[in-house]
């Protein structure tokens, strides 16, 4: 999962008084080198409306399929599961829609004592010597509040970590990524999660889409005064009206966009493309 977009204006606009309408298209293709059968799948690529983003319209297509069911997972994400038994060598998911952003920058959280699962480190965020050292350097001073402190971690990370596509994989831990000094949005996010959790700040991993063309993106939400605030460590900004959220969880593994088991001996080639454009008209025709 990557998603670094260079020519994007991601400055946070105080107040965000203008609403943005974003047209998005998410496209996932899995090509199998030989036909497979009895393919069970779970797809978590359905964006949901919340205070920060309003999903005006969304059309999700999954092919091939025999049955599809929809539900919400334990983190509150929408997901689709299903199965297809006949032989196939392509699995194709598309989600297209319109989102409106820019109303507010944060979303309400439940009671603090109910957010403890976002405070515990996971195997992907577990701090080793490098992360503990970075926390010592960045975290042991100041009387700032949780949001300011998280932003300070984000700025500190920006100085010590660089973006490099393909240098890490899906199983790379925050500790491993930090040790090598570069990675992608997933690694930036896991490192920031690890730092915030060491500081006792509940925080969660977010998968979503960013304006422009590319792959899916990942960022972090931190709990501050009963609300979740988005931080995008890859771009070292706060989450703006250019971000469309898809799902959240404790780490990458809770937000897998696609999971599957099937019968057959085949290599898989996965390709993802995401397009998000701002609608120039104010979107009054789509409500």
């Amino acid at each position, binding site marked *: 999962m990557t998603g670094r977009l260079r020519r994007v204006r991601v400055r946070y606009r105080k107040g965000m008084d203008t609403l943005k309408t974003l047209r998005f298209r998410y496209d996932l293709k899995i090509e199998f080198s030989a036909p497979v059968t009895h393919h069970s799948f779970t797809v978590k690529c359905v964006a949901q409306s919340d205070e920060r983003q309003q999903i005006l319209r969304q059309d999700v297509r999954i092919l091939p399929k025999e*049955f599809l*069911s929809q539900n919400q997972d334990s983190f509150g994400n929408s997901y689709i599961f299903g199965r297809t038994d006949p032989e196939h060598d392509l699995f194709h998911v598309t989600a297209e829609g319109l989102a409106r952003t820019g109303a507010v920058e944060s979303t309400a959280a439940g009671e603090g004592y109910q957010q*403890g*699962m976002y*405070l515990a480190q996971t195997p992907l965020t577990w701090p080793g010597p490098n992360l503990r050292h970075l926390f010592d350097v960045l975290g042991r001073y100041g009387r700032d509040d949780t949001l300011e402190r998280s932003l300070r971690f984000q700025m500190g990370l920006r100085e010590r970590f660089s973006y490099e596509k393909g240098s890490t994989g899906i199983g790379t831990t925050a500790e491993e990524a930090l040790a090598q000094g570069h990675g992608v949005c997933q690694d930036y996010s896991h490192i920031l999660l690890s730092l915030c959790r060491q500081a006792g700040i509940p925080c969660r991993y977010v998968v979503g889409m960013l304006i422009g063309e590319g792959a899916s993106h990942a960022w972090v939400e931190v709990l501050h005064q009963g609300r979740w605030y988005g931080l995008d460590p890859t771009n070292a900004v706060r989450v703006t009206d250019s971000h469309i959220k898809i799902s959240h969880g404790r780490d990458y593994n809770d937000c897998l966009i696609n999971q599957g088991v099937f019968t057959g001996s085949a290599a898989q080639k996965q390709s993802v493309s995401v397009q998000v454009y701002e609608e120039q008209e104010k979107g009054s025709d789509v409500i």
Partner: protein
Amino acid sequence: MDMMESLDLFERTDVVNSLLARYGVKFGIYKNNTFHEQLFPFDAIPRILSVQEFEYLEKGLRQRVDALNLFLWDIYNKKHILRDKVIPEEFIYASSGYLAQCEGIQPPKAIYSHISGIDLVQGKDSEWYILEDNLRVPSGASYPMIARELCRRSSPRTFQAISVADNRAYADLLKRTLEHVNTGGLTVVYTPGRYNAAYFEHSYLAEKMRVPLVTCSDLEVENDRLYFKDYSGKKEQVGAVYRRVSDDFLDPMNFRQDSLIGVPHIFDVYRKGNVALVNAPGNGVADDKGIYYFVPKMIEYYLEQEPILHNAPTYLPYYRQDMEYVLEHFDSLVLKDVAEAGGYGVTFGSSMTAGQKEEFLRLIKSEPRRFIAQEVIDFCDLPILEKGGKVDRKADLRAFVLSGEETVVWKSGLTRFSRNPDSFIVNSSQGGGFKDTWVLNQ
């Protein structure tokens, strides 16, 4: 007991054991990555509980299991016990038994632990102590069931002379418990397969309940429902699954992706409320050895009652004063790793060499949450038959508590004993044997 001497049950021990072997009453263990099957040696001298003693245990066990079920619902829903700081949050979220995937799920009739195996010992002071709660897939009920059946056949006079509560009713009790949460459709026993340690039990209970015994390939999810496919390809909806597959391996789409014994999406159907999984996934958060310490507090918190049955005196090195106590009294304590089960990860302070002790103290200081320390209970020995005579051995009792319409304690239980005279560890995976447990009718 004197009366029993005159009966012929004890003389028939070898007959009963050979019958048990013929019926395949075995359990399997993995050692060095290979599968071994062992007979589970049976000793004919029963543990005998009087009516009064059983009634006392029954009251205490029902109370404990009711509180544990309330705790499980609370933890996966409102978390009031964390709000009120009765249990520190990190004991929940750092527990390997806590499954975030279970957050917010409403199991049918709000029951999480339908079948609970509670391990107790009786101290020399004749006080009973709870050693451990097993709320995931506790096994063992089938052993006293079949032993009773074979003993009755081998020595009918014994059971004419002594009025013992019939433990063969377990199958009906279990079936009622499963039907109570059934959401509509078949009830099945779902086994990982014949290489599971307790496969005998799975097949025996399915047969006694007269319900299908299934493996993953017999079950299939379609359109929000779970189906059983029979040999002719006919599909029938399933409403309750007595699953003997652990949480990790239950569903490759929700837990371990490499599971070959799971049913894809079975957990998604459960999440929708369209099938009961017995016991509910996620129960490990309540039978963690670290959480054990807090069970008496749960009883007070949820039921506003004094605990009837007591824990073995337990210390949590997580609390500073407990850590100090543990360091001071190290040699008289038993140390348990909260992540281990089946008698593994249990060490006695007194049996460590100086080097081991130093290493252990370093570990306990760096990871205090990982261990609990308990006083070594001097528990009652029970006589076993050996080489024509009787010798005393350490023994515990696994009581089975079934939570359906009511919470019921089975009038029997699995009594396990250590065959090694110096050992306190009675787990079958460590080479122990078993006895029947008799509850007298009067």
